[in-house]
């Protein structure tokens, strides 16, 4: 009961005591009345009426109170919204607090660690410390999970690296050593044409080994953050032309025609060496996977977000959707031989993706088996 209600009960008690002791005047005064205005009968009638009301409220609330005492929070308070029940008012508050606490506990159990309990002083302090401990544990778990993911990625990269070293680098070396052994053993019996043929093969093997080593080195340096990025304004057409020179001989041997469709004034802002590496890898792949007499087309156009989209399209053997989906993944093996047995590890495309994305662009491939492939990548055309 509130202090006002306690005062009223106290006054009623005192009036009753006065009446028992025969002090009518004092009883009237407690009610603020003159003795002549005071009616014992009326007062007793009212007193009994109030007492009955109180008893009724008490028994009405008893079920509710007993249920709370037994821990049953599903119970509802007596439904009498427009009559004040002095007996249960404070217990309704307790009931409400316990219901909220139950809801908070359920929320915490579901992983909602933002809850903060404010109920029962010491209890709240302890409970909130427990939530804080759970939150810290969760943060720690998230951190460990993230580190695990990073470790898995690093492990996949390491596996890829060793796989390239163990297999892809070994194969061209084996071929190269075989050719040198052939020459060492049979040189005297060979004609000049035989020697020239072997020399051409040796050159091709050495070129492949060199390109692979170049990619490995660049990838390793990039992983260590050692690749410098010096963006400058570059006339795209000139750089594309420069990049095609590196694959011109291989394309000539296979009779592949290379065409550009790039506006002379189109400029990009990027690191020259990085763009050359990307183009070198895409063009080299296009030559590898295009049969004799095929075509390679390089196009570029302005794209959304102050960028330029470059496309390297070939009329080659293409690939199925499964292989296309794995192209840029370090944890998937995508290396396969070119149309004339050229070696390929898949490392070049991973390198391209890393380079393009690290500089805010994106790369994607569209391909259909037997109908060629198109590789699109974007690169900025404004100074960062």
């Amino acid at each position: 009961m509130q202090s006002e209600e306690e005062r009223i009960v106290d006054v009623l008690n005192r009036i009753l005591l006065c009446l028992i002791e025969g002090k009518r005047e004092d009883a009237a005064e407690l009610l603020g009345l003159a003795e002549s205005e005071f009616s014992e009968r009326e007062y007793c009638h009212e007193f009994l009426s109030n007492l009955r009301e109180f008893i009724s409220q008490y028994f009405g609330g008893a079920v509710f109170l007993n249920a709370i005492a037994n821990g049953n929070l599903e119970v509802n308070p007596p439904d009498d919204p427009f009559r004040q029940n002095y007996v249960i008012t404070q217990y309704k508050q307790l009931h409400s607090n316990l219901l909220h606490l139950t809801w908070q506990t359920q929320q915490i159990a579901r992983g909602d660690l933002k809850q903060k309990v404010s109920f029962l002083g010491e209890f709240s302090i302890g409970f909130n410390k427990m939530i804080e401990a759970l939150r810290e544990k969760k943060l720690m778990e998230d951190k460990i999970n993230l580190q695990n993911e990073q470790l898995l990625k690093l492990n996949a990269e390491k596996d890829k690296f060793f796989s390239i070293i163990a297999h892809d680098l070994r194969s061209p070396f084996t071929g190269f050593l075989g050719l040198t052994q052939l020459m060492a053993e049979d040189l005297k019996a060979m004609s000049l044409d035989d020697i020239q043929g072997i020399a051409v093969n040796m050159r091709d093997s050495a070129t492949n080994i060199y390109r692979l080593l170049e990619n490995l080195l660049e990838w390793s340096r990039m992983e260590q953050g050692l690749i410098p990025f010096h963006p400058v304004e570059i006339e795209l057409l000139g750089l594309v032309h420069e990049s095609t020179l590196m694959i011109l001989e291989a394309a000539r041997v296979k009779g592949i025609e290379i065409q550009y469709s790039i506006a002379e004034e189109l400029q990009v802002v990027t690191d020259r060496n990085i763009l050359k590496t990307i183009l070198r890898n895409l063009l080299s792949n296009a030559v590898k996977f295009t049969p004799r007499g095929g075509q390679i087309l390089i196009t570029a156009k302005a794209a959304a977000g102050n960028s330029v989209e470059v496309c390297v399209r070939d009329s080659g053997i293409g690939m199925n959707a499964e292989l296309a989906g794995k192209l840029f993944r370090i944890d998937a093996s995508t290396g396969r031989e070119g149309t004339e047995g050229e070696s390929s590890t898949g490392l070049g495309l991973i390198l391209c993706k890393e380079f393009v994305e690290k500089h805010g662009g994106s790369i994607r491939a569209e391909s259909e088996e037997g109908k060629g492939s198109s590789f699109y990548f974007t690169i900025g055309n404004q100074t960062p």
Partner: protein
Amino acid sequence: MEINPKYNFEWKDLGNIELGRPNLGASTHVAVYRLMQYTMRDVLEKHWGPEKTNEFFIEAGYKAGEEFCKNALDGSLDFDGFTANLAEQLEHYGIGVLRVEKADLGKMSFVLTVSEDLDCSGLPYSGVAFCDYDEGFIAGIMHAYTSKDFRVKEIDCWGTGDRTCRFSVDVINS
């Protein structure tokens, strides 16, 4: 009677309080808020009767709730996040201390309490629940958040002798 309203409240109508009250700031005494609300109720009841007045308060609260949700709350949060955000903002604006007693997301049925309520906490017992405006306010917030209509009913109120305002909030299934 033909009515041609000239005013349609929007959040921006609250004005730039920081600019307008550089010394007094954004807060005022609760008594001032209640002075306006209860004198308004007094006048409206005299002109329109208690039932119509309650409807006015519910409708005004609904509009306020919708605007409050759109402008002061993050409606993109999930229910847990939204509840936390709502409780935080109700406290920030000094409207009350929100607590969830029960939440059945499947049935969209909730029981909420608002303690230290701006409208009624501390009012003398009158046997009457006063928080019609709050009923509308909660319904407006829920509508703006879920795009569904809700029936909000005040179960307990300071005016009826309780020490916290309790509301049942249930979706209206069309």
